[in-house]
């Protein structure tokens, strides 16, 4: 059933009886061409593009819990393509262009809202770095503007210009960046994939891979064995746990990133602001809540919750930047488990097991990557060759010394 304003009117007048399930709940078949492990944003997008663009006939997504319950449902909804390094640029460029067409492709309003992302700079060295990045973005086909203090003030007059410990000296503005209603992305892809015949199997945990003579034949699950021509794993947050079942150790650690939302407020912040002198970034949802976050909690963990030092640090930074928020209340906090990789960049690659493919290591930036990650992973699964936008995302890049280290922090995942 196609969604539209007319359809809503028709349903409203006929008691909303016609709405069908957004996706089915089928029982697993014995065998699929491709099984995707992980019903998050990336897994669902992969399945959608496999069916839509690579005409793969039989695809299943198996999900341990409910779809969209991982990081696609617990992030701060930001999309952007403001990368510096040539390993990342084509990929995020592709992803942002895909976001721009997503809703029409999915027939689902994910509220893609290009309200602009502003990264503030507070020192001359930061301005130099922002100039290098902004130029890199433009040269890669993305948009960027370098604002001075007055330019920032025009956009956000209520930032702390008067009494700041670290004065605002300007900012890098990426107008095509913005936010997307995160849950809707999972649901939109799920519905889209389902309509193309993909089986989305919820509450079905993969307990093992069936690997014989170096070839992956399928997955053992809590709903029985599911055979597969190929298996693609997209379980960021649990990558190490799942891939350990195939005997792999990954260049990944698990860390928790907390995020926060305030009580609903009338519009304050039109775009996304990132503080350059503290750990704080913030936007305002369409519902009115300020959605904000900061740094990860620093220690390895699989617990989807954080501790006070980071909560306080984030809010201190926030109030330093926007003093007018002092009496706004923080309503809710949550934590998501990040696949923090050794250089801060992801992997979309084959593994040493024939027929087993891996997608992960997204750090805290997996949400904005969702469309391109799905497409590139689908491309790899369907063609056995890396998509041209994701060629650098190799698992062996540390062996060869070809790191993609945007932040220049080296092999310490919690600093990326």
């Amino acid at each position: 059933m196609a969604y539209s304003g007319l359809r809503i009117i028709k349903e409203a007048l006929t008691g909303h009886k016609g709405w069908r399930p957004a996706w089915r709940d089928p029982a697993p078949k014995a065998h699929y061409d491709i099984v995707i492990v992980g019903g998050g944003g990336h897994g669902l997008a992969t399945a959608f593009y496999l069916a839509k663009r690579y005409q793969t006939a039989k695809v299943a997504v198996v999900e341990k819990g409910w779809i969209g319950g991982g990081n696609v449902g617990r992030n701060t909804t930001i999309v952007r393509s403001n990368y510096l390094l040539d390993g990342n640029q084509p990929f995020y460029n592709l992803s942002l262009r895909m976001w721009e067409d997503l809703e029409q492709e999915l027939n689902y309003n994910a509220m893609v809202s290009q309200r602009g992302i502003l990264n503030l700079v507070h020192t001359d060295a930061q301005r130099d770095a922002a100039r290098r990045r902004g130029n890199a973005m433009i040269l890669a086909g993305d948009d960027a503007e370098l604002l001075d203090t007055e330019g920032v003030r025009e956009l956000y007059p209520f930032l702390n210009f008067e009494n700041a410990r670290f004065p605002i000296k300007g900012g890098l503005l990426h107008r095509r960046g913005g936010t997307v209603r995160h849950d809707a992305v999972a649901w939109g892809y799920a519905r889209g994939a389902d309509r193309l015949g993909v089986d989305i199997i919820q509450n079905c945990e993969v307990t093992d891979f069936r690997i014989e003579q170096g070839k992956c034949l399928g997955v053992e699950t809590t709903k029985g064995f599911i055979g597969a021509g190929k298996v693609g794993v997209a379980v960021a947050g649990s990558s190490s746990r799942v891939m350990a079942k195939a005997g792999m150790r990954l260049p990944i650690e698990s860390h928790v990133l907390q995020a926060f939302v305030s009580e609903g407020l009338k519009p304050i912040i039109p775009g996304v602001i990132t503080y350059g002198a503290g750990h704080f970034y913030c936007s305002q949802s369409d519902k009115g809540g300020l959605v904000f976050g900061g740094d990860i909690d620093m220690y390895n963990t699989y617990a989807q919750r954080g501790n006070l030092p980071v909560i306080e640090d984030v809010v201190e930074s926030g109030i330093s930047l926007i003093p007018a928020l002092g009496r706004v209340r923080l309503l809710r906090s949550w934590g998501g488990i990040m696949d923090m990789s050794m250089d801060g960049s992801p992997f979309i690659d084959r593994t040493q097991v024939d027929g087993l493919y891996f997608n992960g290591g997204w750090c805290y930036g997996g949400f904005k990557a969702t469309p391109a990650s799905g497409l590139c992973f689908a491309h790899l699964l369907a063609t056995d060759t890396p998509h041209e936008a994701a060629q650098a995302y190799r698992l062996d890049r540390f062996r060869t010394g070809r790191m993609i280290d945007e932040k220049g922090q080296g092999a310490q995942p919690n600093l990326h």
Partner: protein
Amino acid sequence: MTEVNRLDGGQINRAKEVSFTFDGHRYKGYEGDTLASALLANGERLMGRSFKYHRPRGVLTAGSEEPNALVELRKGGRQEPNTRATVIELFDGLEAAPQNAWPSLRFDAMAVNDRFSNFLTAGFYYKTFMWPKAFWEKIYEPIIRKAAGLGSISFEEDPDLYDKGFLHCDLLIIGSGPSGLAAALTAGRSGARVILADEDFRMGGRLNSETLALGDQSGADWAAAAIAELADMPNVRLMSRTTIVGAFDHGTYGAVERVQDHVAVPQEGKPRQIFWRIYSRRALLCAGAMERPIAFADNDRPGVMLASAVRSYLNRWAAAPAQEIAIFTNNDDGHRTAADLIAKGVSVPAVIDVRADAPSVAGTELLAGAEVIGTSGRLGLSSVTVRLANGQTRKVNCGALAVSGGWNPNVHLTCHQRGRPQWDADLAAFVPGTDLPVGMSVAGAAMGQLSTAQALSSGACGAATALEAIGITASAIDLPEAEDAPISLKPFWHVSGGKSRAWVDLQNDVTVKDVKLAHQENFVSVEHLKRYTTLGMATDQGKTSNMLGLAVMAELTGKSIPETGTTIFRPPYTPVAMGTLAGRATGKHFHPTRKTPSHRWAEEQGAVFTEVGDWLRAQWFPKAGETHWRQSVDREVLQTRNSVGVCDVTTLGKIDVQGKDAAAFLNKMYANAFAKLPVGKVRYGLMLREDGIAYDDGTAARFAEDHFVVTTTTANAVLVYRNMEFARQCLFPDMDVQLISTTEAWAQFAVAGPNARKLLQKVVDPEFDLSNEGFPFMACGEVTVAGGCRARLFRISFSGELAYEIAVPTRYGDALVRRLMEAGEEFGVVPYGTEALGVMRIEKGHAAGNELNGTTSALNLGMGRMVSKKKDCIGNTLSEREGMNEEDALKLVGFRPVKSDETISAGAHLMNASGAVNAKVDQGYVTSAAYSPVLESSIGIGFLKNGDARKGEIIRAVNPLAGQEIQVEVVSAHFVDPEGERLRA
């Protein structure tokens, strides 16, 4: 306005009348009132508008879980949106305004949304607004954003103070109702260190709201006596107005104390609120339970309230929500409410009880087996329609309806570490599960022990058990006799068959119909339901709605409630003002400010300062007549290069390395060799990360066989020290080496320029030979200055001039800079700041932070040959990976504009002389750029593919951000004195 609904009695202070305004009208109330109780006493039921449909709403609860009665409290910088009228303590002069209503609370234009509600069902926005594509951001979304949101902020800075504090205790008791008080008495009398915290301004919990007796006292009197006893115990800290907002790891709790929210303006010097971090050995959750509503058609009219809230207003605040109050219940609490109302002389037209076998109530009519199927009244309830047991309907006139659907234990804090509550079929509610935060236990109604007697005994017992676990013996205390009624409840969630909408989440306007639609569309998991319908996402975090939503979904799926899902809660328990979490770390106090030893002197010179990490450093020293910073900087550079300049370089990290293995240790730390450095000499050193990337550089000076002084960059002072400690303790534990950071212990100044020696000879005591032979380039030694003050002297140069760095104990730094300037007067000495420092280092091609950006190797920096292959050091093995040694690797080179009046920008990208300009053909980037007053030209350094083989080549530096593209010549990065003759002079 008059207090038409004010009754006798209650726990308000009638001696202290206060005046307040709401929605522009003036009212009076008493100290001890909340805004909600005072408005009810004044006959006002309408207090807010709902989020989506702007329906008129009144108060539902008497506590912090209130979803409806949200107001904007105060004005200007103190304006506080979304404040629950139920917890606002009344003070004289209080001003509150309704929110999310325009032009007024009574006539809200946006209420038109309600007419279109059939089109605005759950998730409707996911299905439309997609065409044309550009319309979402331009048309639809701005309208939605404007309509959405609740309260507003003033954009003024909050004038109030906030503090943070730390507390420690053996037992933290959360909640001061009967269980909490019994626990506190038990623990307090045992001598344990106890904190008793309660969010309310009056301790006692439900004891203040009920008419039940404890022994021969009223509940409120017993509570007051218990609190008085506790207040006299030195080992007990009573914290009223204090909400425990989060349970964190290892017994750490976050708490918000509202110190001065109950006055118009905080007392001078007092914080408005304090955020406490409480370290507890054990915690006992005595948070009670929350009554839950029943959904029925039009159950959102002002006047429809929870029965427990009605009793609170009646008994504690002596305010009747209306003159006639009907009851709708599925359990005996409804009957208790009727009895309390009748005792206070309020008319109770009927008790509507869904139980067919409900016991009768004296003084009113019982409608057993009946259900409320509708309500009427435009801005407040005027009647309810009841479907009787026999199927007939009947209208009951009433101004309020007290609803009781049973109780939900307050399990919230038990879930903060993702513990899952478990289902208790007798209560038809979730109770704490088994996976509680470590050290936490639960007592009283929060544990499902709903009678007063159970609460008292489980509180006392819970405290004793918790203390026993940490070796403290508590003896049993005498507990008063108290009500111990069994639970008599028929699980009942919503009335089916009503014609109108029945609300589940009152604030977010989620109705039973929305839950049904979610089910129809397969959003059946609790998480999907919440996210699709926004159920439970309101400011009450689902406290009044989650269970109901879950129950409706369970009914639809045909599963039991626990099979359908659980609801868990995340911090904070109630919303926390961001100012409180920020404390004093705001504005200029966001981070500490570190000042250099010459700061005061530099201020006297009129220096312009800049932030370098937490440090403030002099950026340049403007002189009279200089109108542009470049004039000052050029002068400082030229005068230094022509005569002598002084710069405070104290901020560089300094690490003292001592021990027999000090040299061997530094040999591991630095990429280049240090083992053979002679005593009295300094060497430049480059540090790599283990991945072979350069991360810091500096010098190591050998003062003795077993003593080195290492310097690091300002930015990495902490990191280098940490890494050295890591190597010392974790990698080479048997090396005889000791480290201490001495960054703050020594004030250090660079003295640079052809006259540097002459100047220093006037300051360093004469017995020390500073001649080029006696103290050559890269020498170091201990000297004295100014007649005996100990100092360290290093002949090192960042500027490329004949230069020294001289260090004295920090407390003499101010004196030394004054002495240097005085002694240098004859040479025209200048102080120079970080800008001139930067210009001179770029002129010399020295790498700094912009070049050591975490992605560049020794090879990239032109120091590949420095990396010793003959020894082990951090980073050398992995620096040999193929990807880091490619033929066209980036190399550090210099650039000069072909047209001398053009300017090179740091951050420009490098492109070949002709051809395309895009990321695919990127050749590198400019890291640092400056105007060189020596060369009278803009210059830059940066990384260029295969750069060292391209000197002389003309390429383009592009800066599309500024629409700039200039031709530059690739040159050596050593612009000034490439042979280094000046620094050896």
